[in-house]
């Protein structure tokens, strides 16, 4: 019964204790093994099971893998070599098929002498992506761009690109490196132009086509500026109508006439020459580039408080997400022609890209909607209070932030879409996985080869997708860390 009772022994430590090492069973490899592999009966059993699985898989594949043949003309040749080297009945992988058909897997039937064009296009893709994807860290951006430059130029040179184009690529790439050191945002101009440039590089033909397409928005902008003084409404309508009219009525003739006056053409390559990874990447990139703006519009529409707009967006999104992509591809190949004015037919690749775009736009819209929802309401209010109107607020305040938050989701959507490009095999396009492998196997020399093409294609897909998913995880962490 004491308030200042005896137990309260005042205590002061005069010497601080130094840190000691933990007891032996708490440290080093012993502890690691005990904690991570054998921390209990269940875990011990699991560990043994895991070892067995690894052993089973490895022992079955090691033989086959270690007996790989890289140089042979045909499957029979391969088998002969394997039998000679490792004895009768030995099994082995025949990677020679990849070696022989490598070009076909990568470029499809693209003209050999023009291989440098897709290569350059692919290299420039990274420049276009730099301000969007790699804006987070100057270090990473520098590494990516320098690597791209070196690889692209080297590959182009080996593939026999004309000197003029080598110079062009070098200027763009090196220029990008220099610009990105100071003003990454300036590269956005290149990002916007890239799709049209890419189309021209890949398909070739007259440059006037893409230029005239580009002229549409420019004309629209001019109209908007000119009419802006008269009335905002008229200006907006004009900004929408002028490009449409231009594209539908004038662009075709204009580009033909311009081509007649100044020829700006490189050899044209038809769509049917696209195949392999070139096709997958083309469809994938085109799909993502076009689905992003569409996705943004859909996401804004779905969040709109206008009932009708919202309903339409919901119907569209839910419809697209409710049917398999393969059904939409069949729509592209079988039905799209029904829906267009009689007599219009266009390229199956283009049709597939349209469907893939619609498909991923629906998913993209959901991703972006998440990003929009994550923005605090205060941002909208502050924009309102400053007198920004809806579109300015969206463009200057909301979207830049929402899109940044959504980048990881966008990347995953892209990964999904890129994987799904293999489905184009069902509408008769030469995807790398099935059609290309079937084509390879249809030749007499490689008839009967099965695993190697699949493993090869799977491996490439894995590399690309895994790389992207890791990158997006890195971004996600980074955004979470300095989300300010």
């Amino acid at each position: 019964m004491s308030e200042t009772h005896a137990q309260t022994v005042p205590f002061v430590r005069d010497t601080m204790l130094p840190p000691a090492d933990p007891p032996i069973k708490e440290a080093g490899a012993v502890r690691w093994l005990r904690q991570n592999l054998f921390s209990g009966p269940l875990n011990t059993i699991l560990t043994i099971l895991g070892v067995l699985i690894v052993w089973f898989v490895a022992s079955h594949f090691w033989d086959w893998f270690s007996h790989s043949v890289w140089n042979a003309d045909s499957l029979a040749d391969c088998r002969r070599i394997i039998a000679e080297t490792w004895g009768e009945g030995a099994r082995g992988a025949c990677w020679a098929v990849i070696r022989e058909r490598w070009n076909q897997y990568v470029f499809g039937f693209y003209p050999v002498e023009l291989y440098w064009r897709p290569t350059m296009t692919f290299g420039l893709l990274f420049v276009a992506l730099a301000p969007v994807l790699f804006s987070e860290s100057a270090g990473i951006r520098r590494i990516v761009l320098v690597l791209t430059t070196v690889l692209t130029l080297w590959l182009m040179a080996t593939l026999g690109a004309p000197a003029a184009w080598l110079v062009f690529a070098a200027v763009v790439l090196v220029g990008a490196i220099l610009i990105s050191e100071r003003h990454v945002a300036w590269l956005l101009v290149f990002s916007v132009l890239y799709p049209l440039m890419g189309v021209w590089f890949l398909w070739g033909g007259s440059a006037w086509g893409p230029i005239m397409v580009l002229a549409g928005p420019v004309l629209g902008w001019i109209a908007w500026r000119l009419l802006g003084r008269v009335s905002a409404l008229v200006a907006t309508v004009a900004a929408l109508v002028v490009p449409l009219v231009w594209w539908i009525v004038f662009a075709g003739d204009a580009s033909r006439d311009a081509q007649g006056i100044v020829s700006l053409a490189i050899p044209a390559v038809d769509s049917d020459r696209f195949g392999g990874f070139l096709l997958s990447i083309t469809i994938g990139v085109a799909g993502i580039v076009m689905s992003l703006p569409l996705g943004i519009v859909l996401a804004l529409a779905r969040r709109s408080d206008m009932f009708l707009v919202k309903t339409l967006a919901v119907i569209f999104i839910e419809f697209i997400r409710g049917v398999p992509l393969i059904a939409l591809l069949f729509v592209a190949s079988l039905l799209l022609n029904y829906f267009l004015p009689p007599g219009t037919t266009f390229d199956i690749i283009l049709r597939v890209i349209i469907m893939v775009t619609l498909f991923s736009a629906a998913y993209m819209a959901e991703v972006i909607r998440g990003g929009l929802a994550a923005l605090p309401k205060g941002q909208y209010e502050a924009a309102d209070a400053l007198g920004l109107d809806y579109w300015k607020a969206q463009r200057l305040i909301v979207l830049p932030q929402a899109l940044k938050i959504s980048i990881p989701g966008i990347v995953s959507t892209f990964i999904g879409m890129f994987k799904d490009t293999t489905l184009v095999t069902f509408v008769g396009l030469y995807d790398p996985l099935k059609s290309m492998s079937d084509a390879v196997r249809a030749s007499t020399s490689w008839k009967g080869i099965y695993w190697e093409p699949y493993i090869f294609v799977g491996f490439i897909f894995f590399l690309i997708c895994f790389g992207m998913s890791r990158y997006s995880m890195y971004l996600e962490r980074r955004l979470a860390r300095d989300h300010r």
Partner: protein
Amino acid sequence: MLIHDRRYRSMTFQVIVFILVMALAWWLVNNTVRNLAAMGKDFDFGFLWQRAGYDIPQTPIPYTSDDTHLRAAFVGLLNTLIVSILGCIAATVVGIIAGVARLSNNWLIARLMTVYVEAFRNVPLLLWILIVFAIFTEVMPPPNAFRGDDPAASMILFDHVALTNRYTAIPTLAMTNDPGSLDLGARITFNWATIAFVVVLVAGWIVRRMIAAWAQRVQDRTGVRPTTWWMSLGVMTVPSLLLIWYFGLHMIPPQLRGFNFTGGLNVQNGLVALWLALTLYTGAFIAEIVRAGILAVSRGQSEAAFALGLRPGRTMNLVILPQALRVIIPPLISQYLNLTKNSSLAIAVGYMDIKGTLGGTTLNQTGRELESILLMMGVYLVLSLIISTGMNIFNASVKLKER
């Protein structure tokens, strides 16, 4: 001007949008009509009642080539549902195991599961389907390898199952006291025994719930929860065992006759491969969802439960799972949706789902691409809507209450 008034501005805008959408719709329909006219075709679902003329390898309901396209489509739909439902169940099991194993403190298991998840998530599903299918056709023996006195291959599970490169032959069930079948018309029948089993199982499940409720009441009253697992086990199993005995239910193992195994049920490899590939692929995604769900329940929750003296098992049941499920279920359902849609890749392995029948052979034989594809998309849409409605109802019911 109306456009300057907040109230009418959005109305005006909506009217414009509406007009544009209507114009677009009209344009599409008009084009279609004109195209159909130009091709001399019409828009008519009459072909569904014509003779199909082709065979389907795996039919859950009786079907011959003399049946109509409609029935073929229905068989396809059932096949879609079969592989989807089996896939969802298996993928959930695989996903939960892999997801929990990835969080295991066993280093090896966690790594193995990471390899599994990444391998399946980053490679196209189509490739997995083809590879699994290839494993079946290339690695499994053909049926005639089971022939002879010294066969090259032998059946597994006490001569009840044969894995061949065409199908997996499994036993069928037969009854000595066959109670006959309930005929629903259109040659769709249900054996009374099946119905009896379903009834008994459902009843058993209800009784089990009642036992649980009773246990809860006892616990509420006395604080002590009676042991009920043996009762639950009893009501779930004993009636079924009785029925088995009563109907004389037994298995007829498959036997090799002629070219193939007969007597049993031959599950086509297309189905097995598709099912396996879908399971493993979706399982990898579900594993991530489960992992994220468990991680989403903060450590503080389990610590709080431990500090209150709850044991780990109880903590899992009462605290972690109820919260994790809220996080897990919505993306899980959308994986179910994806799986159902992905089952349309059946086309790659010749499994005749609705894409293979209605959207494949029927479309081809009749040339009715517009009708077939619209109908097929409609079916998928209805399936998705059913699944996502279920999801929304669930979400609404478990949403955490916030301030």
